[in-house]
């Protein structure tokens, strides 16, 4: 954050009427209970994004909340990416040595973990094994942010041995629920409307940032923000853009990049850059995780936002764009289908052609864009703001730590 940390009261004009008062009352039930969140990183990725806004608000309403990461140096990122891909259905076989590396990693991290919390929430794969060393007291919850609707069996079987030792699991969608002997709750992730990624920007700020990024605003902008991996389908987005371009003069901005230890991502990134090198209206931007204002400005400058994923745990970028009243064209995958109400707040598509058709339709119809955009913002206000997520966490704490 570049500005001061927002307080709960700052969210009152943005959240649905009455929400802040309800949250204050709800928090009275769990005041002074201790909550520990454990994630892979405090800097990178959607989980860090969520916790960055959530943890201070939990503290403000009286929950003694702490947040630890198990991979501060990023040394286990490669192992984490491989397991994430396998859990999201990638068919590439995870070698046994990755599982062994995971066991060693877990043992080392568990030894350093402080106990004494009333509830411990571990997020995604890297910290899941900490439950092996859990103390008797306190509730342990595994929060899975991934699309595990069709996991690679071997990877899921490996992970499941840890998951069953928790008191509850939390998934983002009913489609991700598994056969487990523990309660499974549904909490959809949420965006922080006051964070740098989503806070209001003036037209001048947007113009300044786009000029600095070298993106002219002389034509409608199609935008996709997302890592360059095949689940985000950046090449499919380029194909769709080319079909749109036959009828509408526009630009495509792809914000992404690939980790150097992800060979498939690096190759895909090269393909995307090669395509961009032959088209002056196709821009590829590689932004650091800290460049949140830049993403904010690009989403505000975009005419249409795409998230043409083929697998997606939730896809916070969709909610971010919807909050900015943008019509979003999303892939029919995972949490995107829960955010986009077809024809009301945007469109979900199943193909390159589908994405191109909807983009053409939206470019040709400003009134449709405005109508979908307004409904999209309201849908996010009711369902996907940080205040709702705070309420769900308080309710979970009240339920599991009675």
């Amino acid at each position, binding site marked *: 954050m570049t500005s001061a940390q927002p307080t709960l009261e700052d969210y009152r004009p943005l959240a*649905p*009427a*009455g*929400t802040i*008062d*309800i949250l204050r*009352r*709800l928090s009275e*039930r769990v005041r002074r209970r201790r909550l520990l969140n454990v994630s892979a990183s405090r800097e990178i990725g959607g989980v860090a994004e969520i916790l960055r806004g959530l943890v201070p608000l939990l503290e403000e309403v009286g929950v003694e909340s702490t947040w630890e990461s198990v991979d501060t140096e990023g040394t286990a990122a490669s192992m984490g990416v491989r397991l994430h891909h396998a859990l999201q259905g990638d068919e590439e076989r995870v070698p046994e040595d990755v599982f062994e590396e995971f066991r060693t990693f877990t043992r080392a991290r568990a030894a350093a973990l402080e106990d004494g919390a009333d509830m411990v929430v571990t997020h995604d794969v890297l910290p899941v094994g900490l439950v092996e060393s859990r103390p008797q007291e306190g509730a342990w919850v595994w929060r899975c942010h991934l699309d595990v609707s069709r996991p690679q069996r071997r990877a899921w079987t490996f992970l499941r041995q840890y998951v069953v030792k928790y008191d509850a699991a939390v*998934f983002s969608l*009913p*489609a991700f*629920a*598994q*056969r*487990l002997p523990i*309660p*499974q*709750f*549904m*909490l959809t992730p949420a965006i922080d409307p006051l964070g740098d990624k989503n806070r209001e920007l003036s037209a001048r700020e947007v113009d300044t940032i786009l000029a600095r990024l070298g993106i002219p605003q002389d034509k409608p902008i199609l935008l996709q923000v997302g890592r360059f991996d095949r689940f985000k389908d950046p090449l499919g987005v380029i194909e769709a853009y080319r079909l749109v371009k036959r009828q509408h003069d526009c630009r495509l901005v792809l914000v992404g990049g690939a980790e150097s230890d992800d060979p498939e991502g690096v190759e895909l990134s090269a393909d995307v850059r090669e395509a961009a090198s032959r088209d002056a209206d196709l821009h590829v931007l590689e932004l650091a995780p800290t460049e949140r204002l830049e993403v904010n400005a690009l989403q505000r400058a975009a005419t249409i936002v795409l998230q043409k994923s083929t697998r997606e745990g939730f896809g916070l970028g969709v909610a971010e764009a919807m909050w900015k009243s943008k019509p979003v064209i999303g892939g029919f995958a995972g949490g995107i*289908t829960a955010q986009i*109400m077809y024809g*009301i707040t945007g469109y979900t598509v199943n193909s390159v052609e589908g994405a191109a058709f909807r983009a053409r339709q939206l470019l040709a119809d400003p009134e449709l864009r405005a109508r979908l955009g307004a*409904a999209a913002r*309201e*849908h996010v206000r*009711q369902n996907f703001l940080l205040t709702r997520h705070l*309420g*769900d966490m*308080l*309710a*979970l704490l*009240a*339920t599991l730590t009675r």
Partner: protein
Amino acid sequence: MTERAARTPFHFLGCWELREMLGRRAYDERELLEHLEEVPVDSIYFHTHSCFLRERNFPGTYPNDFATWAAIQVRDRVLGEKLGIVDPQDFADLESLRTEVVSLIDDHVSQIGSVPRVMFGEPFYFMQSRVLEIPTGIKVRTLREFRDALARVDAAVVYLHVIEARGRKGRRRNDFAAWIDEQLGLPELAGVVSRLNPFPFGLERVRARIIALCDTALEGAP
């Protein structure tokens, strides 16, 4: 009469719903039937009553999840219509409602001779919820105070006192009607409020109707 102050004030309660997944899913109408016979009664409640909490701005096609799934995901509009007309308020309890839904689907599948299945849509995911009651801090003693407070509270308050009161708690009439009768001594108004049915129209219509009824009663007050 209408300006009478109640001895026991009405405390408006809000709620927060924590959703729980049962890990059961149905890909066709026969599977839906089989799960329906086995799931906890709280799941029947979730899919027939608490839709109102989740679909405040953009209501589903029908006022229960079973009907909407049949019509939209399976594309079996006939079953959607048959289930859509089911009014939970017509049943004494949730087990009776479960029996009716099961019977309707069983009868439908027997009649058409095949089992409609999702081809391109989503399966039906069975869920239930835990609803945490939360005091809003608003308490009223007169009909006018009640009317004014009702106009400004969150829709979840209306849900808790109208739908949850009867559907899950099994009360004979909704909390508003009971208080208006027992504390304000207005049995006629209470009777009309008691008969208001949220199922075809949603919470906001019920709220608007109660406010209008209160206004009428207040206008006629001496």
